[in-house]
């Protein structure tokens, strides 16, 4: 990847990996909404679902694409940011250029960094423990991931951490979704209006959807 110098090709990679991650967000949210089920039923259902995901060969293959996408998206953004910094030259003494664009469209790197830092914690606390840690079994004999998640969200600070990360993700999507389509080359004005609206709905839906889970668990259990 390092040998691709061209920025449009690089941006295509950002767009395609970004859109794949958007697709993953939907699946991940739908799966995790099972956490909102009544405790006893939810525990069995959620642990069964987790077990299915970790043993299905197709899901396993897709998960490798997912890890690769996260890494490619991250590395590429760093490369492009450094390149852009070099291109922009010296700064203005008085700079009011901000009036022309939305703050989140200029702060994609910052928002992305917050999301990435969150992902490290998220992977460490759930993915890593599920894969390599010692977890008790539930009554059906599956690893009790449900118990781990519910216990984690009893801590208010942990819920707040999630809220910050999800908010950052929401703004990242608000710009990233339509921007990806532009990068790939969707230039028809009608479809652009449509994509922009869908992008807003998607970003809001993901933000609210992901907000609900930690707050619901914190307040209810």
């Amino acid at each position: 990847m390092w040998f691709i110098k061209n920025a449009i090709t690089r941006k295509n990679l950002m767009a395609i990996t970004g859109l794949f991650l958007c697709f993953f967000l939907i699946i991940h949210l739908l799966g995790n909404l099972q956490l909102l089920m009544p405790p006893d039923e939810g525990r069995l259902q959620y642990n069964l679902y987790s077990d299915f995901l970790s043993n299905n060969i197709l899901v396993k293959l897709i998960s490798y694409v997912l890890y690769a996408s996260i890494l490619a998206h991250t590395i590429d953004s760093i490369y492009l940011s450094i390149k852009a910094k070099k291109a922009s030259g010296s700064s203005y003494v008085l700079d009011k250029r901000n009036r022309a664009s939305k703050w989140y469209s200029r702060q994609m790197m910052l928002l992305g960094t917050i999301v990435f830092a969150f992902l490290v914690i998220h992977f460490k606390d759930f993915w890593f423990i599920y894969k390599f840690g010692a977890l008790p079994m539930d009554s059906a004999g599956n690893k009790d991931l449900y118990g781990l998640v519910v216990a984690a969200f009893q801590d208010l600070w942990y819920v707040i951490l999630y809220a910050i990360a999800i908010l950052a993700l929401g703004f990242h999507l608000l710009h990233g979704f339509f921007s990806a389509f532009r990068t790939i080359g969707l230039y028809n004005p009608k479809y652009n209006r449509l994509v922009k609206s869908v992008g807003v709905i998607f970003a809001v839906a993901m933000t609210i959807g992901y907000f609900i889970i930690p707050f619901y668990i914190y307040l209810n259990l």
Partner: protein
Amino acid sequence: MKIDLKVWRQKNQNTKGHLESYILDEVDAEMSFLEMLDMLNLKLAKRGERPVEFDHDCREGICGQCGVMINGIAHGPLKNTTTCQLHMRSFKDGDTIYVEPFKAKAFPVIRDLKVDRSAFDDIIAAGGYISVNTGQAPEANSILISHDEAESAFDSAACIGCGACVATCKNASAALFTSSKISQLAKLPQGKKESSKRTVNMVNRMEDLGFGHCTNTEACQVECPQDISVLNIAQMNYEYNKAKLKK
């Protein structure tokens, strides 16, 4: 009107620039911004000082020669206006106005407010033309172009190459400038034929010259004197991707 001007002074490309303060007492509200700078220069010349250098030509908002950062915004506070079409009535008595050159790695300062925008010429030279002589205007019904298509191509062609898009972009990207030419030609039958080759050559030249990439903040269109649409950039990406996939 009394105006406190803070003007960027820089002797040449190799020296460091700084802001210099000048007070102008008799600024007329009906003066254009450039006439106000003329007034300053007259004053400086009378005092035996070096006048402030800035680019300008038609002073009618057509040529794209003028262009400075005024109070931190390309071409000043009015939207879709060139510097020459900005008048002092947009400011108040006693205002402080910062005047700086457009800044980007690909736009080195020549002196004061004058920057070298020949990088734009280089991009055009890489493919912003039709290589065959298209001759006289053909009979109007022999090549049919829809009204919408013709208007859209004309909108793209309206770019005056002032460089405000680069100055406004946080990445100093020349995507709006380059794409307006690419899509103007791609929309018309004479230009369509060479679209792939042209797009690849112009995009590569744009990058070699040190311009940044586009992150779709859309700030360029907001500050563009001609309101060139950011969808031109999407079309450039489309043409580029198409050319690369076909190869």
